[in-house]
């Protein structure tokens, strides 16, 4: 069962331009699968909805490549749950704050809003979680800033 899920994840990682991860370290896929499952548990805890993120990635590989890239970049499970909300429920990012002082502290605060209402806050002191900022869909609309979407980096 686990081998099958690892094989699924390895294939999906390859599709997200990250196949080299599994080839360079045989344990990497197993570790990433554990983190993805933790993110699913975070999602359920935060939103009250059970979700198998690996199954979600299998069902919508084009839509979820960015989630796998964030996973591979060591984004923590709570922030991966935020990413999943943006990708799967099409939530919008309505607030971002990043406070950083060299050699001292890093804090990221993100608020997302579901299309049908409901705001959800995420906080992290892990510097690696700042990776999510690279993938946000940044746009100006009628001269005002908006952040909507979470997009995969190109791999070629």
């Amino acid at each position, binding site marked *: 069962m686990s081998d099958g899920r690892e094989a699924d994840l390895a294939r999906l990682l390859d599709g997200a*331009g*990250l196949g*080299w*991860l599994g080839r360079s370290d045989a344990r990497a896929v197993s570790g990433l699968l554990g983190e993805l499952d933790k993110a699913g548990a975070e999602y359920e805890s935060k939103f009250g909805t059970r979700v198998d993120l690996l199954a979600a990635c299998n069902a919508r590989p*084009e*839509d979820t490549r960015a989630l796998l*890239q964030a996973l591979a970049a060591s984004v923590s499970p709570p922030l991966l749950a935020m990413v999943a909300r943006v990708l*799967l*429920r*099409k939530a*919008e990012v309505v607030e971002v704050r990043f406070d950083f002082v060299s050699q001292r502290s890093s804090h990221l605060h993100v608020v997302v809003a579901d*299309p*049908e209402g409901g705001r959800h806050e995420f906080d992290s002191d892990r510097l690696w979680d700042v990776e999510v900022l*690279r*993938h946000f*869909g*940044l*746009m*100006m*609309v*009628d*001269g005002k800033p*908006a952040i*909507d*979407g979470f*997009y*995969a*980096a*190109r*791999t*070629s």
Partner: protein
Amino acid sequence: MTIGGHDVILPFGWEPEDRDRILRFFRHVWPQGLYEDALGAYAGSFSEALRFAPPSNEFFVYASQEAWTEWESEGASAANLDTMVHVIGDTTGITLVIDSPHGPMEGRLTELLEFLARNRLIVTRGGGRAA
């Protein structure tokens, strides 16, 4: 039904995520807007379409339900000016068919172009190029 209008061609080959990008952009422009695929097989709000509409590289975005009704019954008219965009994507570019490249759509097209362009610039560390 007459559509007419002007073609604005964005110089980007269509990517599967482009519909997501375009609908997320237009849900800020027209919060009450409506998506309809080119075959008329699916229609719904932008947020619903983002979740449930089958993939498509040709579709319409309308400013509102009323705009959709007006276009369906009258085609292009003075009453529904600048309330619909026809999007067609292929490997050579993304064509936006609009009433006029001037007026209220001018700035929005520039912003959409920026959004689509900037989100094509990031590459992965494993992709062999620096971000």
